[in-house]
């Protein structure tokens, strides 16, 4: 299908972006790899698309004392090629390999993925497992929000009117693992697992397991795989999709947990 009619404006600076996104019916366009399909399918009807890809302040990947700061406009391809990401956020480096296909990875952005909050997408689960900090910019200043409080519900986040995702900060952890099952490489996850081990213990998050990325706090507390798999039954109530029942997804979540378990329980 073809997209409905809308106006288009390109912001050259953050100030200009803030002014444009407050206009009625405005929607932010970054890489467009989820927004343009939903326009083509007429699931979205914006009056104005504000293209922020020209805003330099939203670019870049840099190491800060608090962790790795990734600008919202970093594309999947840039993340995939980044040595900083490979070294300081290996969980994200593993996850990006599962994000769509090369032609899409060249345009899609991390900020767009987090702002859309697709529950089957990889980055929201990575952000939740790391309890990353989402940096939200507004004309009156920045607000920082932990991933645990950022993802509210299906495609709903804590982003307020006039705000945009400026960056995400990923803390360093001791060990991490990302695994995903999909029908075709790069397709939406049937189920995916993002897990980390840090001084405060394990954190295990799943994508494709609910309306948001979902934490599995009970499984994370267990010290044996069998107990953790049993606990997963209480942590997850995955909704069925077109091809997989809820119980199949729960079974596959347990399979991923068993594959991840050696990394998560390795003594150090």
């Amino acid at each position, binding site marked *: 299908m073809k997209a409905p009619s*809308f106006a288009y404006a390109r912001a050259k600076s953050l100030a200009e972006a803030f002014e444009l996104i407050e206009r009625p019916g405005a929607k932010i366009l970054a890489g467009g790899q989820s927004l343009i399909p939903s326009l083509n399918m007429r699931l979205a009807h914006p009056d104005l698309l504000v293209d922020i890809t020209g805003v330099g302040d939203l670019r870049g990947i840099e190491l800060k004392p608090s962790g790795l700061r990734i600008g919202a406009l970093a594309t999947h391809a840039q993340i995939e090629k980044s040595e900083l990401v490979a070294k300081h956020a290996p969980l994200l480096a593993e996850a990006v390999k599962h994000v769509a296909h090369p*032609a899409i990875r060249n345009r899609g952005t991390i900020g767009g993925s987090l702002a859309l909050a697709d529950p089957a997408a990889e980055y929201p689960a990575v952000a939740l497992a790391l309890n990353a900090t989402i940096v939200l910019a507004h004309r009156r200043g920045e607000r920082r929000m932990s991933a645990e409080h950022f993802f509210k519900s299906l495609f709903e986040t804590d982003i307020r009117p006039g705000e945009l995702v400026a960056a995400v900060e990923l803390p360093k952890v001791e060990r991490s693992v990302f695994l995903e099952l999909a029908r075709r490489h790069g397709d939406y996850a049937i189920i995916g697992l993002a897990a980390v081990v840090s001084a405060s213990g394990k954190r295990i998050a799943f994508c494709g397991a609910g309306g948001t990325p979902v934490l599995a706090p009970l499984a994370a507390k267990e010290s044996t795989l069998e107990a953790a798999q049993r606990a997963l039954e209480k942590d997850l109530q995955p909704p069925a999709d077109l091809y997989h029942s809820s119980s199949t997804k729960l079974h596959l979540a347990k399979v991923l947990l068993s594959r991840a378990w050696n990394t998560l329980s390795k003594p150090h």
Partner: protein
Amino acid sequence: MEHALETTLTVNGQRVTRRIEPRQHLVDFLREELGLTGSHIGCEHGVCGACTIRVNGEIVRGCLMLAVQADGCTVETIEGLTDSKELAPLQKAFHEHNALQCGFCTPGMLLAAQDLVRAGKKCSRDEIREHISGNYCRCTGYQSIVDAIEEVMRTETHG
């Protein structure tokens, strides 16, 4: 309502300026406005890969980019890359290996394959499959496509 914006881009080496409605995606623009019908439209939501084109040297989904976003960009399509002979080795190998039947996916498949070939790295069959995982072919079962790409990579690496 009219929202058209004047947009200038370079397509296969030629500068073009048009007034473009923001709702028009890049492949529709190439096909409808410029008559470049080699880039195909399959699913129009980024799944099939038939619209794969090159923008500023990188492959993209032509249906997932608005034509107005290409303002100032360099766009290369199957037509331009055929004329420049850049795709000639792959086209020959596709022909020889029967790596196409109906041909609908082929322009997109060639662009995705060339992206891998020109990276200059020798890839395993699995890596080739992964790279073209975003391009659907409903005729060949992919085996012959992977054969063709593998052969070009082998010859290019040795040559």
